[in-house]
């Protein structure tokens, strides 16, 4: 079987680099081109030093892209929606890791992004590329959207409880994300200056964070948005890769721990990339993002306060993997009907 030909735009960035790393080892894929405006002509290892001696690929100019089977877009927010027509002429299937095509509704987009979408007609067509929730739609999809890294963590942590119909939606849902510095991309600036960023515990967008919109869309009933008030805040911490979300959910009935276990097991026991983590002993009792660096797992745990009918949900992943490029490769695997784990078997390190 000839390999599927994949090209990448924005390949000098962090999600682009991660895609290159993954696809170079993918048995059914061939990377044909990697585009970068700033690095054209350079070897990919000049931007991604881990790829030295592994690939002799060079970046091409974005304008020199030729046609391929699948095109990955790894561009800053707002860029791909402005050029999506051109990109779609290059490939029958496009996977866009940015926020541009995550929302189905132009209204939801406007409400959370503060401006009109540039290609609203495409929104209903695009698939929210989270295999755990949209696996079947992916097989036919021509335009797939990547998912927000903190949104993915939150949604994978909470979806089973929402699907089970046990969440009391009259109480606001509060989520707190802790996130590493790579989530902000490869561009240097004062906010990422090491003496200031190092050891930081930095609140950003304590209200109004755009990833909230994805939660509203994906945790709602199929076809309708969640009407529950969602309070999402994020804190940047000392970490390069990784996200941990802590969410407080109130139940509409009194359940015991085993009931919650049952709900999660039913939801996730066949999922290759979700692990339930909840131990009574040891140091790693709940999900811990550091052991996920480089892996495609999303680890999910919980703690129940029986009296308060409150579940604290704890979910973790690597923002560049299950939160971006790894999930993109998993979606690609779904789109072609392949084993979803192809190219994604690295288990993560310990200690690290």
């Amino acid at each position, binding site marked *: 079987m000839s390999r599927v030909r994949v090209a990448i735009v924005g390949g000098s960035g962090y999600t682009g680099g991660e895609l290159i790393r993954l696809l170079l080892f993918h048995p059914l894929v061939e990377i044909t081109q990697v585009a970068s405006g700033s690095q054209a002509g350079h070897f990919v290892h000049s931007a991604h030093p881990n790829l030295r001696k592994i690939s002799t690929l060079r970046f091409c100019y974005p304008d020199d892209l030729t046609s391929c089977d699948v095109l990955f877009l790894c561009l800053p927010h707002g860029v791909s929606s402005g050029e999506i027509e051109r990109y779609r002429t290059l490939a029958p299937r496009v996977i866009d890791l940015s926020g541009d095509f995550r929302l189905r509704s132009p209204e939801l987009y406007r409400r959370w992004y503060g401006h009109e979408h540039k290609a609203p007609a495409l929104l209903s067509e695009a698939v929210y590329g989270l295999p755990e929730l949209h696996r079947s739609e992916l097989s036919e999809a021509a335009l797939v959207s990547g998912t927000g890294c903190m949104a993915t963590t939150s949604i994978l942590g909470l979806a089973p409880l929402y699907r089970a119909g046990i969440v009391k939606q009259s109480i606001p849902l509060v989520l707190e994300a802790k996130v590493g510095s790579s989530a902000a991309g490869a561009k240097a600036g004062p906010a990422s200056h090491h003496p200031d960023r190092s050891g930081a515990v930095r609140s950003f967008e304590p209200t109004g964070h755009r990833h909230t919109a994805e939660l509203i869309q994906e945790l709602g009933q199929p076809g309708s948005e969640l009407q529950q008030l969602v309070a999402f805040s994020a804190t940047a911490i000392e970490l390069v890769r990784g996200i941990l979300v802590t969410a407080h959910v109130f139940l509409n009935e009194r359940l015991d*721990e*085993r009931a919650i*276990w*049952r709900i999660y097991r039913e939801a996730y026991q066949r999922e290759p990339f979700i692990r339930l983590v*909840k*131990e*009574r*002993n*040891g*140091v790693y009792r709940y999900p811990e993002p550091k052991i996920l660096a480089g892996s495609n797992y999303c680890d999910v745990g919980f703690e129940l306060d029986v009296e308060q009918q409150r579940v604290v949900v704890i979910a973790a992943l690597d923002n560049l993997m299950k939160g971006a490029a790894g999930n993109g490769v998993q979606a690609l695997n779904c789109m072609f009907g392949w084993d979803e784990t192809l190219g994604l078997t690295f288990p993560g390190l310990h200690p690290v």
Partner: protein
Amino acid sequence: MAAHCPECEADVEVQGLMVGEITFCPDCNAELEVINVEQPEVALAPEVEEDWGE
């Protein structure tokens, strides 16, 4: 056929173990005592709460 963890209901393999032997839940790591092997059954072993240091 497997026993079920009383803590989290995970399947717990007891084949090859003896009654009274200690095993661990693959999911929640609870310490379990084998109660029955033919009709697989396990119970929570008496546990000392670990000082977790935080």
